[in-house]
């Protein structure tokens, strides 16, 4: 007699989840981040297996290992410029005789000016949020989003990577442990930007560059291992 209902569902109210991993692939966690807790914070710049992630460019069974952004200290440059402009505006209005200009014009222009300054900060923060590098167990994906009108997504498979190097230069990067990572690929990485082919992916001003290099090296070794075992996709 066929089962009319699933017993587990009847007891707990939840459908039992059956995990069916790809028959040839195993989940791999790089040793460099094995003991690190998966990240919950959505505004981080070094996210390890982020929980609340939506990414529509992943393939089936592809697992996100890391999501990288610029170190937040890079936002301070734009914010500092905005603060200087605000202070300059206040000083200008205090020490300049603006009484000859009708008050209504001053209010309108002042409002427009502060809206513009807010727009500058917002644009910088949104650009920072969306400019990401996604490292999965199969690929490295570079998402570039400049000035809110230019979007470019570049990806390269882990087994095309030939060399990974990092550099930390400067006082602030040394103190805060952020730097640049250069990933050299075997062939040209073709991006959607017109007439642009590059044989590398560059990750600028990212936190923990040494750890990123270790993770990528481990992923490269894992790909080699999978090829030898015949488990590669």
């Amino acid at each position, binding site marked *: 007699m066929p089962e009319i209902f699933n017993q587990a569902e009847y007891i707990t109210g939840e459908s039992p989840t059956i995990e069916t991993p790809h028959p040839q692939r195993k989940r791999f966690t790089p040793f460099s981040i094995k003991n690190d807790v998966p990240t919950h914070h959505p505004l981080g710049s070094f996210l390890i297996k982020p929980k609340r992630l939506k990414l529509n460019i992943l393939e089936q069974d592809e697992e996100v290992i890391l999501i990288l952004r610029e170190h937040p200290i890079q936002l301070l440059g734009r914010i500092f410029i905005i603060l200087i402009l605000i202070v300059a505006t206040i000083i200008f209005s205090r020490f300049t005789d603006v009484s000859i200009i009708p008050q209504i014009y001053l209010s*309108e222009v002042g*409002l*427009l000016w502060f809206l513009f300054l807010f727009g500058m900060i*917002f644009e910088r923060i*949104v650009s920072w949020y969306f400019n990401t590098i996604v490292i999965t167990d199969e690929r490295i994906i570079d998402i570039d989003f400049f000035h*809110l009108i230019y979007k470019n*997504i570049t990806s390269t498979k882990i087994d095309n990577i030939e060399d990974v190097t990092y550099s930390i230069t400067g006082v602030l990067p040394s103190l805060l442990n952020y730097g640049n990572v250069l990933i050299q690929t075997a062939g040209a990485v073709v991006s959607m930007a017109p007439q642009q082919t590059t044989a590398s992916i560059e990750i600028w001003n990212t936190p923990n560059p040494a750890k990123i290099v270790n993770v990528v090296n481990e992923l490269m070794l894992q790909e080699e291992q999978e090829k030898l075992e015949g488990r590669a996709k």
Partner: protein
Amino acid sequence: MEPMIFSQTASFIENGGIDFIIKIFILLGFFIYFIYSLVVMVQIKRMFETISTGAEIQIFAISIIHTAVSLIALLWAFMVL
């Protein structure tokens, strides 16, 4: 006899022509900023369809408020100018 352009210019200024040009520029500035904020909102929505790490609601809310404020500023400029 002075050229006509001088008398026409003087007449234009006397009749509030400079004021009119300033108002046009201010309204144009608000209008362009409103269009910019709309473009930003649409682009943010499209980018969230590509990637999001969990802050889409907050960022999109700020973008909507930003667009609303720029629209209100544009309407206010129309009313007072």
